[in-house]
């Protein structure tokens, strides 16, 4: 992998930016170049929200991901909006518990993970975002497993240390699906 451009998209409150931060910190730990660019503005509560992550071996030009190698869609509007932007041969990861349609493209790899449902069933409500990061890791190995964990640790403040285990569990669920 020389450059991986990922677009995470969903509703505000689904943890899109946090999931992006976990990816970004993992890449930092791995010694990669990276950029993390959020959408910002009135949509930050409840509206659509997205986050561009570029991970690369060389200096990063535009941090805005307009032609993603990887799209993670956590709601229907996000899938509709970005499905055709994904480059041929790219990956689309869909939270199939919140998105009720299928991707009608045959030039991309599509994975359906009922992340929100899995989170609820496993008592880690709200961690669908991290389940999807786990799945993304399984399919792309964008960093090493060790650095993914190191990145996760960087994103969870010491006073919320209990969250680390639930997040690790979420990653595992994602990797197993």
């Amino acid at each position: 992998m020389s450059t991986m451009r990922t677009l995470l998209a969903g509703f505000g409150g689904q943890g899109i930016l946090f999931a992006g931060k976990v990816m970004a910190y993992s890449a930092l730990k791995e010694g990669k170049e990276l950029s993390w660019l959020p959408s910002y503005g009135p949509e930050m509560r409840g509206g659509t929200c997205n986050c561009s992550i570029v991970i690369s071996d060389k200096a990063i030009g535009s941090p805005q991901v307009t032609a993603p190698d990887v799209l993670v869609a956590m709601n229907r509007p996000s899938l509709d909006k970005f499905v055709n932007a994904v480059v041929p041969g790219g990956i689309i990861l869909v939270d199939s518990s919140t998105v009720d349609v299928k991707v009608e493209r045959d030039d991309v790899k599509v994975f359906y993970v009922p992340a929100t449902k899995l989170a609820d069933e496993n008592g880690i409500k709200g961690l669908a975002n991290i389940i999807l990061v786990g799945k993304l890791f399984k399919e792309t190995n964008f960093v090493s497993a060790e650095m993914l964990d190191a990145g996760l640790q960087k994103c969870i403040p010491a006073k919320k240390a209990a969250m680390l285990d639930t997040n690790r569990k979420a990653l595992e669920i994602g990797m197993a699906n």
Partner: protein
Amino acid sequence: MAEKVLMKGNEALGEAALRAGCRHFFGYPITPQTELSAYLSKNMPKVGGTFLQAESEVAAINMVLGAGATGVRAMTSSSSPGISLKSEGISYLAGSDVPCVIINVQRGGPGLGSIQPSQADYWQATKATGHGDFQLLVFAPSTVQEMADYVSIAFDTAEKYRVPAMILSDGMMGQMMEPVCFPDNAEVKMVEKPWAACGHENKRPHNIVNSLFIEAQELEKIVVERYKRYETIKANEQRAESYLTEDADIVLVAYGASSRVARSAVDAAREMGIKAGLVRPITLWPFPVNALEATVATAKQYLVVEMSMGQMVEDVQLVIGRRKPVSFYGRTGGIIPTPEEVLEQIKKLAGKEA
């Protein structure tokens, strides 16, 4: 070397200000510079400094004038509409020769505009930040690391020449996170300020920090002296990065956020066999004439890329003149152009339209 951390551009500006010895920040809330004020409101008190949320942008810049007049490193930050409000105070700072640092995290305009990234304040920053004959030093970082690096450079340069400095950033640079590294033991070079109004302690005649010179001859003399300093700045302080320009047929010119996009487009063009390069001004004033001039002999044409309707392009045209064609591509209103759009322009210019 210290550990790399992930930070938003806005936060990096705040941390860099603290490390540059800035202990006085005066601001007023506005998107998209929010994280900068938030960072300093949290961290300034920890180092015994002043974070003051003013009643307006107007008040904030005048607090900078007062604090700066006493000789301390003072800073304010805002975004486009707020900078318009500050322009009165900025003119007084320039006219009183008070160094300071002003951050503009640009958003779309005119008017209330949008809150998305923009570069439409180039003219305001480099030509007319307020009334009267004056210039600001204008720095345009293009990475979060540069956001961090250029705060102390801005303070140092501002103090060296007694000229206010602006960091012209934008919503994209402010909101994005990238790895950033702060040097462990960076030394803060505090210069003597014998002109400062901080109490004469009965040891010297009183200092007056002032921009009023009611006699026309006196005012002219003072402005002319200031312009001599500007000439020195133009000779010594130009900064730019040249990327793949040595053999480039098409030289792109872009700064800040749009230079990131331009760089991606240059890489993509090279992959297609088009010899493209990029001159990235880091100082917008002084404009890096020398870096552009260095490309004129070999470049066949220029493409200026901005997040505006075309402002810096006029400075590029001023340098290149009629020697080579200069084209422009821009998006405005808060739209960030995509590398693909810029690549299309490069292809058109190269005669390789898709």
